[in-house]
């Protein structure tokens, strides 16, 4: 990752994996990726990193005791059973 082009394209990688990179830069990056194995690995492992965080994310639930204290604090004790 020491080459000038790699450095120049580094800030584009995040948009690239999101599919939101503008067309000109996207063409330039894909052209570069054809010949630069290091950048290809960075893109692949960047995608994999995001994927791993997303699939291992905890479900958005509140533990029962925390939920109970929240409802009591909000004076919503009557609604606790409507889970």
């Amino acid at each position: 990752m020491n080459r000038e082009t790699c450095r120049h394209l580094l800030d584009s990688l995040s948009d690239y994996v999101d599919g939101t990179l503008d067309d000109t830069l996207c063409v330039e990056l894909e052209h570069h990726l054809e010949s630069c194995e290091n950048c290809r690995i960075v893109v692949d492992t960047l995608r994999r990193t995001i994927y791993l965080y997303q699939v291992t994310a905890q479900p958005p639930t509140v533990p029962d005791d925390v939920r109970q204290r929240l409802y009591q604090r909000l004076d919503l004790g009557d609604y606790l059973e409507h889970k």
Partner: protein
Amino acid sequence: MNSDKQSSEDFSLEALRAGDKNEFARLVEAYSGVIYRLAIKMLENPQDAEDVLQETFIKAYRNLPGFDGRSSLSTWLYRIATNEALMLIRRRKHITVSIDEPLETDEQEQIPLQVTDWCCLPEEELMSTEAREYMDRAIDDLPYTLRVVFLLRDIEGLSTREAADVLELSEAAVKTRLSRARLRLRELLSEYYRERLQSQNAAKGEKPQ
């Protein structure tokens, strides 16, 4: 992620502004899970996360009569929660942290140094209990300003526009911070998985890559 989100249009703003308890209870039920998950990841501490959860909805209830509806309800709740978390961090660390402060040294560009291709590791290795703990620590290692952007965009599934709205930053700033956060996490995970790959190869009697 996106499937967790409930549309703000599912709620009656009129009832919420009027202090309707029934409607407010529905709002709490719909959003307490995502707010708690965000707070846990931001603060690394269940007690602090619970405080943020409670304060978020107390402030929401208090301020709903003046809620102008310019942001969606979820964006507004996330904004209250991130501000609460930031205040807790300031209090705990006795330092000044501001989400809109300019990029600092530790937020600077992450030049990739690790170029091991670990994508081929089996999923049970990538998602082992040990790997997950390492992933959590990697998030904790991010400076707050990067961590919060990563959590809102990649874990909570907010769009760039929504995250910018929550944090009152420009979309360009959100993109830059997300890029730095992701590259930093990739670097940290690569260090870990490179070792896993090496020990796997060593076990097979092959030379490490």
